[in-house]
């Protein structure tokens, strides 16, 4: 079986992103970029499934500018067999990405799409579910365990009340949560080998789609900062403050 892994290019999670000076967008100049952590987890899972002999090929795909080559090279170094870059200079939103991924799905016919539950940039948490709906295939989101069977996949999901297990028929969309696995690091030889692996480039126009941007960002601000409070020197002092100043306990 073939596994498709959509990879989003986002800020490194250690970087605190700020608004730009005119408050029209975030300022990403000089911000270190990376593979979205949830996509790393998705890729790791795909590679493990392949290593266990349950998949033949892992294909990474990213939608964005030429710069996304970087993240696709990382994916190749980690173990993806090949990569596809759908090129566009316009900002894409989840609905657009899902429509684009439909086209790639139709071309590639994967049995499984493994993707992140959310991008740590926009925190949308939408693309996987949208893709599932557009393709009329089932979804299992927020996965913390994935077991591949012949025609289905059993997925344990992290939900607000605890855990839930679903069995979904293949082909299916699975989106990853943090506990699914711990992604590996790329070894130097694999980084070298990745340079020779193919990245197919497709211009968005070739897919016959146009980007709609149905939602526009009109302002980006810093949240109101909390004022730094005080240090207390004992449990008694803390309880006194909580009882008599903040009045939050009795």
């Amino acid at each position: 079986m073939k596994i498709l892994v959509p990879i989003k290019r986002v800020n490194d999670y250690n970087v605190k992103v700020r608004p730009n000076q005119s408050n029209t967008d975030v300022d990403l100049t000089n911000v270190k970029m990376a593979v979205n952590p949830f996509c790393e987890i998705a890729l790791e899972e795909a590679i493990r499934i392949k290593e266990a002999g349950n998949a033949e090929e892992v294909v990474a795909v990213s939608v964005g500018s030429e710069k996304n080559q970087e993240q696709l090279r990382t994916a190749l170094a980690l173990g993806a067999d090949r990569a596809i870059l759908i090129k566009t200079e316009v900002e894409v939103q989840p609905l657009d990405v899902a429509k684009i991924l439909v086209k790639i799905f139709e071309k590639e016919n994967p049995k499984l799409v493994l993707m992140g539950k959310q991008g740590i940039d926009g925190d949308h948490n939408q693309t996987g579910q949208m893709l599932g709906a557009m393709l009329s295939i089932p979804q299992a989101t927020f996965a913390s365990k994935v077991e591949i069977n012949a025609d289905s996949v059993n997925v344990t999901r992290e939900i607000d009340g605890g855990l839930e297990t679903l069995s979904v028929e293949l082909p299916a969309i699975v989106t990853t949560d943090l506990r699914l696995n711990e992604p590996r690091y790329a070894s130097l030889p694999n980084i070298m080998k990745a340079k020779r692996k193919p990245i197919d480039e497709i211009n968005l126009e070739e897919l016959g789609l146009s980007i709609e941007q149905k939602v526009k960002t009109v302002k980006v601000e810093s949240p109101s900062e909390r004022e730094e409070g005080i240090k207390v020197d004992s449990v008694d002092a803390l309880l006194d403050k909580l009882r008599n100043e903040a009045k939050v306990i009795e």
Partner: protein
Amino acid sequence: MRTLVIVEHDNENISSSTLCAVSAAQKLGQDVDLLVASSANHIAEKAQQIMGISKVLNFVGDNFKNEIAEDLTACILAVSKDYNFFVASSSTTGKNLMPRISALLDIQQISEVIEIVSNNTFKKPIYAGACIATVESQQEKNIITVRTTAFEKAVPEGGSGQIENIDIPEVESRKSVFVGNELTVSDRPELTSADIVISGGRGMQDGNNFALLDSVANKLNAAVGASRAAVDSGFAPNDYQVGQTGKSVAPNLYIAVGISGAIQHLAGMKDSKTIVAINKDEEAPIFKVADYGLVGDLFEVLPELESKI
């Protein structure tokens, strides 16, 4: 036009996040209807009592015992033409479901709304809450999920909504099947709606030590939460995780114990009214957002705290 709110429940009770979604929906200034899909009528009977709502669209069937996104999607689509606004909370149920509907109605959803500025303008946190974006929708129909901590709960009683029973739409062959679940049972208040939350981090060292938090929580009638590091290390179940990619909480009092205060953790709790940090490292970033910081060893502080409350 009308607004449709998706009701979440556990087959017994309506979740408090739904009440927050209702009050967010009311800010849109249109009639608010509720959609209930459940295995018995009593959820709709509870839903009709929520103050200020008009109608309850009631779908009853055995397959609604578990909230399978594909099944719920079919229900919402069956009634979608009467609505131009669809609202759910950004719980795991809302997150799982709403994008499916958005895709089929060709709508770009807006997730985690914290403020409704007008019927086409919304505020939402991005980049782990490091920025707040104001977004404007150019669409005639909109789908939003709302962060429950940003909206008050609608009053659950006193309303008089009409129940409208609706036939279950045909769902194509079952491709998604519920196998089982392991739900966390606790006598304590629910994490996202508790008045007081006490959370433990990697500093707790061990799952057994969470008992120290439990005994303080019992005295304060607090919920217990955790950082990602504590959950990853197996100290606490996944549903305890507070943060950017876990739950958002905004209690009256949040006590962070052995938590450093990474931006991803702050994203889920920095709107709490009063924040207490207990950490042995006086440089820990958590102190920057804490109203009261206590520098000390949690293994000494927690037992003392428990004995003095």
